[in-house]
């Protein structure tokens, strides 16, 4: 009796462990490999060049099927009185800041998704709706998204936005670096339309060289810092400015990738399903041991009674 119980238990627990290990191998997403191409694209934004015409906002709305209106209405500079953030219907916005060095030249900063090399949204998404394309763009897949807004909590730049006004099927909206246009071989809309070439699109490594070169040539007009070169492990969009970036509403971030520690812990805990299987094995053995002890006690009691 005892032996057969023991054999059964061992069989069942071994089967469970094996099953879980197999499941773990097939279903659990392993550490996302570094699929990034070394020639991945980025964008260099030179805020000393930007004139704040907001044509990029207009082009972005057109490219993403949002109501754009007439381009002439974008000449209205009174919108700069307020600091704006990307919304579900405007994926990029330009904010204006006072220039302390040259008062007549305000600093205009375009805000949109930074397309991080190690994106926190991709790591945080529980259903894998976000992905990092090997060419650098971070894109959102509406077929997978369940709308939990974890990405919005995770993003160090607070970029993903949610269609709060929609009851059913609200989208997560953020810059996708014009995924559709890039698939067709076109430039992203904002870069295409920029009249002063404040935005430079190209391989990220080249952009860093260009940025360094610009700072070297004009050390007086630039703050010697490329925002985005190392922030949260490097971002696709990088900024040059003549002011400290904290004064331009850029968050001060460390150089480590945002998902680094949490991702390591998560993937460590669930690697090959070993810890959950161990937990079940522990509980199972505890169940068996206590059951065994109890039946012995009962036998002993029965013996005493009779």
């Amino acid at each position: 009796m005892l032996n057969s119980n023991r054999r059964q238990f061992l069989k069942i627990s071994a089967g469970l462990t094996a099953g879980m290990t197999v499941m773990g191998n097939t279903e659990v997403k392993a550490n996302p490999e570094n699929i990034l191409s070394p020639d991945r694209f980025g964008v260099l934004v030179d805020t000393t060049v930007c004139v704040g015409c907001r044509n990029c906002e207009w082009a972005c709305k057109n490219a993403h099927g949002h109501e754009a209106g007439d381009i002439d209405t974008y000449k209205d500079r009174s919108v700069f009185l307020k600091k704006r953030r990307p919304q579900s219907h405007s994926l990029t916005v330009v904010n204006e800041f006072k220039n302390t060095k040259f008062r007549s030249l305000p600093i205009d900063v375009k805000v949109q998704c930074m397309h991080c090399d190690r994106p926190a949204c991709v790591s945080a998404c529980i259903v894998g709706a976000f992905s990092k394309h090997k060419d650098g763009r971070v894109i959102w897949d509406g077929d997978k998204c369940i709308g939990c807004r974890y990405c919005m909590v995770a993003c160090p730049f607070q970029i993903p936005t949610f269609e709060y006004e929609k009851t059913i099927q609200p989208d997560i909206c953020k810059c996708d670096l014009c995924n559709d246009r890039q698939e067709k071989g076109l430039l992203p809309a904002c870069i295409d339309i920029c009249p002063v070439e404040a935005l430079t699109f190209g391989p990220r490594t080249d952009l860093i060289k260009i940025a360094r070169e610009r700072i070297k040539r004009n050390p007086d007009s630039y703050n010697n810092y490329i925002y985005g070169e190392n922030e949260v492990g490097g971002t696709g969009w990088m900024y040059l400015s003549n002011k400290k970036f904290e004064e331009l509403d850029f968050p001060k971030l460390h150089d480590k990738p945002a998902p680094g520690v949490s991702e390591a812990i998560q993937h460590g805990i669930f690697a090959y399903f070993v810890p959950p299987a161990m937990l079940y094995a522990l509980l199972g053995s505890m169940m068996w041991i206590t059951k065994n002890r109890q039946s012995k006690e009962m036998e002993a009691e029965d013996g005493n009674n009779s």
Partner: protein
Amino acid sequence: METIHNPAQIKNVTFFTPGVIILSIIALNGLVFLFGRFIFGIGAVTNLNNFYPWGLWIGVDVAAGVALAAGGFTSAALGHVMHREKYHAIVRPALLTAMLGYTFVAIGVFTDIGRFAPLNYVEW
């Protein structure tokens, strides 16, 4: 053993005690906002926005619902896994509470998320 598993019907107990009435009023209040959410959207009833994508909502879901369930499963573990027979009497009510806890977490999350189509892919 036999004395422990001796279920009996509870008799002559009024259901609508003052406590239950107060809780029912709170629940009805919640139902009003539940309907509001499906008419005006999640932003209108929770005041969440792009800066605060998660709020008290998640705290109630996760901190209350899951914690309620955890207690039930711990009781079940005491009774059935560790075979402490004296806890058997409370295992059933505890498991019922736990089940309700997780059910309300699920209902709460369903109300929260808004995109249901991908859930078809989840293997239940």
